[in-house]
């Protein structure tokens, strides 16, 4: 028993130390700094909840929060709908479905920054050229206002991540016994009824996982934001993560940035956990 206890701690300690060094201690320090006037080097006074009061009166933060929430709602819906649709498509029996899986997944292999620059070119050059050639005004001037900036970010994120979501849905779709689907077919269910009443409830765990991933990813997005719009024009497409980075490194207000980051963390954690809790309740054992 003593030996087991020793080996148990021997294996666990490196992980605990690493976690403490890079997660727990910085997090606790961060929480502490959010109550000070820390400027990245040191602090001179304790401010109490002043930073928290300030941030809720900070129009930049509120705008970024609202923009991020809208972005998350749209991307979560689109990513899950498109990811599931792609998964349903490539799990059909036809030639080339494996090739399609690879093609759909490939954008996920490209880094967010590079992807942002590629799509910046597509939006500003290719869209523009097409718009002019075919006299479609809505294709011109992309990324020059908040609306096209928003949809540009949505398109890039969905294009990048839907292949990844597709893979998760595929794994669960392939787990559904074919006999259950055939039984529904014999029961007279149309393909749509089979999807609604049988397939979808049976891939509920995948839905939980994908909702969690897309939600937290949507809130945390930074690199695409940086390379595609850099928050512009006039900070109208600045998302929460970027707002926090800018507060810290552009405005040099590290303490306020810490407070924002803590609020950000609490929002993401609360929404994600709530979502997981409610979706888990709907899941069934196969």
């Amino acid at each position: 028993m003593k030996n087991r206890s020793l080996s148990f701690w021997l294996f666990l300690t490196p992980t605990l130390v690493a976690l403490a060094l890079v997660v727990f201690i910085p997090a606790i320090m961060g929480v502490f700094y959010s109550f000070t006037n820390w400027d990245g080097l040191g602090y001179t006074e304790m401010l109490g909840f002043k930073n928290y009061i300030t941030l809720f009166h900070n129009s930049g933060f509120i705008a970024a929060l609202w923009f991020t929430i809208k972005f998350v709602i749209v991307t979560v819906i689109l990513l899950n709908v498109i990811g599931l649709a792609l998964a349903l498509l490539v799990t059909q029996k036809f030639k080339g479905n494996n090739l399609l899986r690879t093609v759909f997944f490939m954008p996920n292999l490209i880094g967010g920054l590079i992807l942002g620059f590629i799509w910046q070119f597509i939006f500003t050059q290719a869209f523009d050229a097409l718009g002019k050639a075919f006299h479609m005004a809505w294709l011109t001037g992309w990324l020059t206002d908040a609306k096209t900036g928003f949809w540009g970010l949505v398109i890039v994120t969905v294009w990048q991540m839907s292949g990844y979501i597709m893979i998760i849905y595929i794994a669960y779709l392939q787990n559904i016994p074919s006999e259950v689907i055939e039984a529904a077919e014999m029961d007279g269910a149309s393909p749509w009824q089979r999807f609604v009443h049988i397939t979808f409830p049976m891939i509920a765990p995948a839905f939980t996982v994908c909702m969690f991933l897309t939600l937290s990813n949507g809130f945390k997005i930074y690199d695409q934001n940086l390379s595609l719009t850099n928050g512009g024009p006039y900070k109208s497409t600045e998302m929460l993560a970027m707002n926090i980075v800018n507060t810290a490194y552009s405005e040099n207000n590290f303490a306020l940035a810490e407070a924002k980051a803590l609020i950000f963390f609490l929002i993401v954690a609360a929404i994600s956990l709530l979502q997981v809790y409610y979706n888990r309740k709907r899941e069934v054992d196969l």
Partner: protein
Amino acid sequence: MAEIKLEHIYKRYPGNDADSVTDFNLDIKDNEFIVFVGPSGCGKSTTLRMIAGLEDITKGDLKMDGEVMNDVHPKDRNIAMVFQNYALYPQMTVFDNMAFGLKIRKMPKDEIKKRVDNAADILGLTDYLQRKPGALSGGQRQRVALGRAIVRDAKLFLLDEPLSNLDAKLRVQMRTQIAQLHQRLKTNMIYVTHDQVEAMTMADRIVIMNDGKVQQVGTPDDLYNKPANKFVAGFMGSPSMNFFDAKLENGRVSNGKGLDVAIPEGRLKVLRDKGYEGKKLTVGVRPEDIHTEQVALEAMSDALVDAKVEVSEFLGTDSMLYSRTGDTEFVAQVNARDYHKPGEEVKMAFEMSKAHFFDDDTQVTIE
């Protein structure tokens, strides 16, 4: 309920060189309980799935009440099916599982409730209607699967190895329950199994298949006592029929290695008339037609074999003597009183009036 005809049905999967089902012909009469039996991969499930509409028919016609059903969608065939792995909808309660097909067909709610309650009553599931399949035992799940078929009031029931996931005792119980269900519902049933005991005990008629081909269609009695060929003879019956490669000479069959027995006059005449005198043939003797009791040895003194018992199994009423004569192994099913220990040398009498003879080349029964 319905007359079903399968006329020259073939199935070949894309990319395959050979047919999975070859020239399948069958007329199913009203209210008949048909069992498809055969070893794994013989095409019995494929045939069932073609009838269900879950597989395309490559060639041939499937007719129900005179109408060709080849291109009719499964849901429009008025067929209910019970699957091997139950195929219950895990997220639905037992009630909803049974009601699903009726809801899809937009049946009035009170009629759905009446039918489900009735089926639950027949199957003893009334107390479990609000449970989900995950909270049921294997036998209960299988009954739900049956209930789902019953409520549909279909023309034809298809059952694809429905008992193979149950333990031996439950299997026997469910076997009886399905047979009772058939009598009660008075509907056509096609039942697929690889278990010849299930086939023998439940079927009005058995279709025995091998390598995608129908070997014989007949009543359990026909298949057991008048097998069409060596395959059918070997497949039906447990333990299997013993086979001896032998030669017919001077009214006796012998293999020069222990087997040398006389053939009764009537059987001998048939063999001689068919020209088997002096030729090789296969002799089949069922284990229960081999005797060790003194009275049998005296009565069948011209059909005795010296055997050595290698393994013996005591089964209560019977004993199985796994024995050897020369280099041929065989099994004798004798009365438990005639138990012999392994290693004992025993004289055994072969009841040749009940023996079967098969052509050495074609394996077809000589009759």
